């Protein structure tokens, strides 16, 4: 396993830019997830590292090897495809042995490494089966064993869970993560599923339109999003467009004033953002004592969406703007009714000002 570095990687197809200037440094043993909507360039980036797409410019290195101009078969990366891409005419054991045969290992060593790899994914008893006789989850594990058997410098996962059903996905997620930690695998995974990304990664890269929008841990992205795209893509958020007035208050286009405490700076157009679970809600009747560090707005409930652990309360403000408050569902908490007048409140330091 090795450290992986991508330096100013660019891929253009004629006029369109698929990947614009991506620089990443993945530490040895780190699980890095590229997250973004489809067409954001994450898969192209992964395919460049695997050697299937030739970058227009930039450099890639794995360990101390510069792999930028190496063909795929000399890169020693282990790629797990979205479609698994098992060889349908070979048995499970032959599939796993393929990469080892390419490396001209002695027959006896291949047999040992194949059974090791299959045991690792708990498929030892299935060695003689053909891929079509396996379930989707089992095929996925064969693909993983096949990629790991060659002892790659870096493990590449291309939407590896998207073809599994929801329950299995949650299991395999944990399984892959445990294996990755136990073996200390340097891993790059591509996904559009934020839950998958958040649960598996050490660090994440949020991409959009070919560009890196933010690199950081789950907490970094969720609590300190660098821009509106990240705030909206990772988790959910209320957004209001507006400006900062001379007194340090945020003033939305509709005229809603929000106290930002000491953080009120920034010029020009900005966006105020706050997570729904940070917005507390009190029915007018239960109005709590005034806290001076609180922002407080009142409005009317338009929709209440029950989500199990919490209920989303959509509130229409007098300015015509809308906010969502997420209220935890507890037996002792009464949910407001549609049409009821409510107060929204949140501490001054809960919201964020995004300039981008």
């Amino acid at each position: 396993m090795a450290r992986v570095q991508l330096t100013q990687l660019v891929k253009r197809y004629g006029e369109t830019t698929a990947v614009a200037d991506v620089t990443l440094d993945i530490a040895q043993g780190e699980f890095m997830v590229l997250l973004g909507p489809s067409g954001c360039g994450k898969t192209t980036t992964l395919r460049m590292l695997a050697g299937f797409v030739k970058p227009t410019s930039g450099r890639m290195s794995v360990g101390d090897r510069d792999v930028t101009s190496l063909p795929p078969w000399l890169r020693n990366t282990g790629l797990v495809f979205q479609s698994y891409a098992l060889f349908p005419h070979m048995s499970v054991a032959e599939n796993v042995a393929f990469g080892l045969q390419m490396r001209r290992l002695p027959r006896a060593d291949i047999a040992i490494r194949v059974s090791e790899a299959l045991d690792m994914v708990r498929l030892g008893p299935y060695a003689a089966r053909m891929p079509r006789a396996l379930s989707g989850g089992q095929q996925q594990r064969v693909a993983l064993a096949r990629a790991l058997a060659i002892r790659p410098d870096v493990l590449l996962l291309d939407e590896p869970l998207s073809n599994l059903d929801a329950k299995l996905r949650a299991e395999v997620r944990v399984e892959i993560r445990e294996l990755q930690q136990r073996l200390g695998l340097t891993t790059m995974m591509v996904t559009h599923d934020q839950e998958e990304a958040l649960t598996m990664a050490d660090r994440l890269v949020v991409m959009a339109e070919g560009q890196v929008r933010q690199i950081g841990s789950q907490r970094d992205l969720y609590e300190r999003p660098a821009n509106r795209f990240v705030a909206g893509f990772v988790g959910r958020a209320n957004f209001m467009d507006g400006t900062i007035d001379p007194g340090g208050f945020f003033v939305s286009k509709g005229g809603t004033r929000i106290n930002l405490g000491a953080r009120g700076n920034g010029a020009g157009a900005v966006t105020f953002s706050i997570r729904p679970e940070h917005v507390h809600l009190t029915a007018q009747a239960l109005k709590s004592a005034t806290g001076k560090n609180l922002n407080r707005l009142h409005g009317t409930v338009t929709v209440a969406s029950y989500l199990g652990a919490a209920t989303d309360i959509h509130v229409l403000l007098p300015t015509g703007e809308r906010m969502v408050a997420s209220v935890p569902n507890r037996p002792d908490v009464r949910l407001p009714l549609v049409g009821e007048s409510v107060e929204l409140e949140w501490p001054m330091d809960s919201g964020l000002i995004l300039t981008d």
Partner: protein
Amino acid sequence: MSWRDRALAAAALTSLGFVLLPIVFVVWLAFFAQEIAVFPPRGYSLRWFNAVFEHRQFVSGFITSLQVGVAATIIGLCLGIPAALALARRHDRVAKGLNQLLLLPIVAPGVVLGTALYIFQVEAEIMAYGQGYNLAVIGSAGGLIAAHVLIVIPWTVRLVLASLEGFDQSTREAALNLGATPWIAFRRVTLPMIRPGIVAAALFGFVMSFGNLEMSLFLVGPGRTTLPIAILQYLEWKLDPTIAAVSVYQMLLIGSALLLTNHFVKLSRVV
């Protein structure tokens, strides 16, 4: 059964009868006892099936057709398979255009193709002569085989493309990722997966070459006639059940090749 179904069935039976009737008569004729074809037959005999082998032109025609068919099929596969692989990998307008272009030889009428090739070969010989070379193209085995390659290629491309339809390109990439060079990836992963298509292409291409008459007419040389041409020449001065017996042999060969092909790739999907 509604009247619509009945009408459809009747139409289908009529056209099937239309197609099959000549074949039925040819096979029937091959068993007639007398030399002159008159109905109803005065008796039945198997002697014409033996008589075929007494005519040298049929035997040598069969051998020529076999040789040309095999050679053209092998060359056609070597050219058609890579073309199909390349076409399967891209889906842009260039690929579509090339695909159509490669199908042209089976769209053009055989007579036109034969004339064009004949003129081309004459021109080639003249040009070679002008450069000081004495090149025999017209009527040569090479010239005939080259022409037959032309009718094998479209079928190869079609059949191999059909077998690549369900082929997941990422299996090829998986092989490359695991350390296989493109050639090894082709041999160990792609080839085994498209083998049925290749076998079908070989059989079908051979059938097309073996049965070809119109184009070959312009390109055969003295002493090197193909079986369909030998049959035509025989017919010019004699009509007896021998010719029907030869046709039965040819039908059996082609029919079994087609059945075998169908076993590998459903022909109704590509023809």
